[in-house]
């Protein structure tokens, strides 16, 4: 069944079921090539449907309730999930890492979101869920990925280059000075994918948000304006997320007496 509402083709359950056939194509390839991915594919497909459907229900409820505290609660839940996801990607535990990740993600998201919503887009009211939630989601997603990337790189470098750090400490460097080259490498590792992405955005593929807007009937010229905002917003979220996480996390590896806590490595 097809019905055009405001230029949007609404998808029926039947049409979604047709899309699901694509998963069966992958499952068939996996079986034929003996990739052993069939079970994970089915679980992944079911999870995607259930998760997205639940999110859709919740967002629809929040949009219609139109209360700022519901929006805030959604944001808190998003930060909590992003914190857990960022921490779980680390190779080894760091004491207090949940607080570190939560602080870095909250601050980086709050700073970016305040600027983008309050200064650039200016929706009325400012907490308008239609704008705030998806934009916060994109910011948080980038902060989370960059924090995890930077944290992982910092951990592996601290282990691999511990003698180098201690050589600097032995030469009279402070703890922060001794780990500075490693902090720099971790930040670069986290930021390079975003910087590279800016080089090719729109050329290699159309970004998700822009694609979504065009599919939803927006003019491509409107869509690119939002996309430009999103690209810069994600770049700053990446930078602030990784910077906050690495700066806070590296402190856990150092003592006030400028020593490296080797037992944490």
């Amino acid at each position, binding site marked *: 069944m097809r019905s055009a509402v405001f230029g949007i083709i609404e998808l029926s359950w039947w049409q979604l079921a047709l899309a699901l056939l694509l998963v069966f194509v992958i499952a068939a390839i996996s079986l034929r090539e003996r990739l052993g991915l069939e079970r994970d594919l089915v679980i992944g497909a079911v999870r995607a449907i259930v998760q997205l459907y639940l999110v859709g229900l919740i967002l629809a409820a929040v949009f219609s309730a139109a209360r700022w505290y519901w929006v805030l609660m959604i944001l808190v839940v998003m930060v909590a999930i992003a914190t857990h996801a960022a921490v779980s990607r680390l190779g080894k*535990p760091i004491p207090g890492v949940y607080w570190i990740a939560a602080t870095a993600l909250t601050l980086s998201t709050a700073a970016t979101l305040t600027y983008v919503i309050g200064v650039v887009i200016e929706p009325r009211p400012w907490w308008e869920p239609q704008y705030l939630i998806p934009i916060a989601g994109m910011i948080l997603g980038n902060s989370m990925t960059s924090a995890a990337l930077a944290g992982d790189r910092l951990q592996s470098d601290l282990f691999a280059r511990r*003698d180098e750090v201690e050589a600097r400490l*032995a*030469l009279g*460097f402070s703890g922060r000075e001794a780990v500075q080259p490693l902090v720099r490498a971790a930040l670069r590792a986290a930021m390079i994918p975003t910087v590279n992405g800016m080089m090719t955005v729109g050329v290699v593929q159309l970004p998700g948000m822009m694609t979504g807007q065009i599919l939803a009937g927006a003019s491509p010229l409107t869509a690119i304006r939002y996309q430009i905002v999103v690209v810069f917003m994600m770049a700053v979220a990446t930078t602030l997320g990784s910077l906050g996480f690495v700066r806070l996390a590296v402190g856990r590896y150092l003592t006030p007496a400028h*020593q490296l806590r080797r037992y944490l490595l």
Partner: protein
Amino acid sequence: MQDAIFQVQHLSLAYPARRGHRAATILDDISVDVERGSALTLVGPSGSGKSSLLRCLNRLEEPTAGVVRFCGRPIIQLDPRELRRRAALVQQAPVLFEGTVRDNLMVHAPSAALDASGSRLREALTEVGLDLALLERDAVMLSGGERQRVTIARALLRDPQVLLLDEPTSALDPPNAMLVVETICRLRDTRGLTIVAVTHTPELVRRLGGALLYLVKGRVQAYEPVHDGGVIDERLQAFLSGTHP
């Protein structure tokens, strides 16, 4: 001891139990003095705590009990960065940073001044017996012995009172090891440096003289002066001659 530059009193070091690791005692009730201008050699089997004791002296490691005094003052009252400039550590595997030998000699903390004039750099290289032409060579091109001597020169530029050497010859072939032994002994004589060295090299033990501390499983097994290039304790003699079980 009348003029001890380092005084170690009842020092213990233990690591607490953590996920996947049991609690471990690294050093247990160590007391030893290091006389100014003299040498202390730390020997013992692997895992006996020699390097940890060395790292406690410049506070790269924090003891769980006991006191370390440097020039009469507990080291916890000193700025660790200043302590580490005065008691310079040379690591077992020489760490050189990216760049030339000159770059490596000039490495210093942004918060601390270092007199790294051309004449000082040349002087430091000469003191460790290296050719001045090496100054502009990329550090990755150096041999093991040259690398170790560059790290010693880098430490000397801070005008330390003590050199802490962690198995300085263990990664070197015999000719290079001998050059490093020569360098260390010469520095002790010319600069009046105090040397604390972890080593398995009998030649370095004999040449340095001073006192010898034999550690096993973090405890002192023997602590005695080296007389005329020899040691009295049979366990020590056996260890140094390689016949210890």
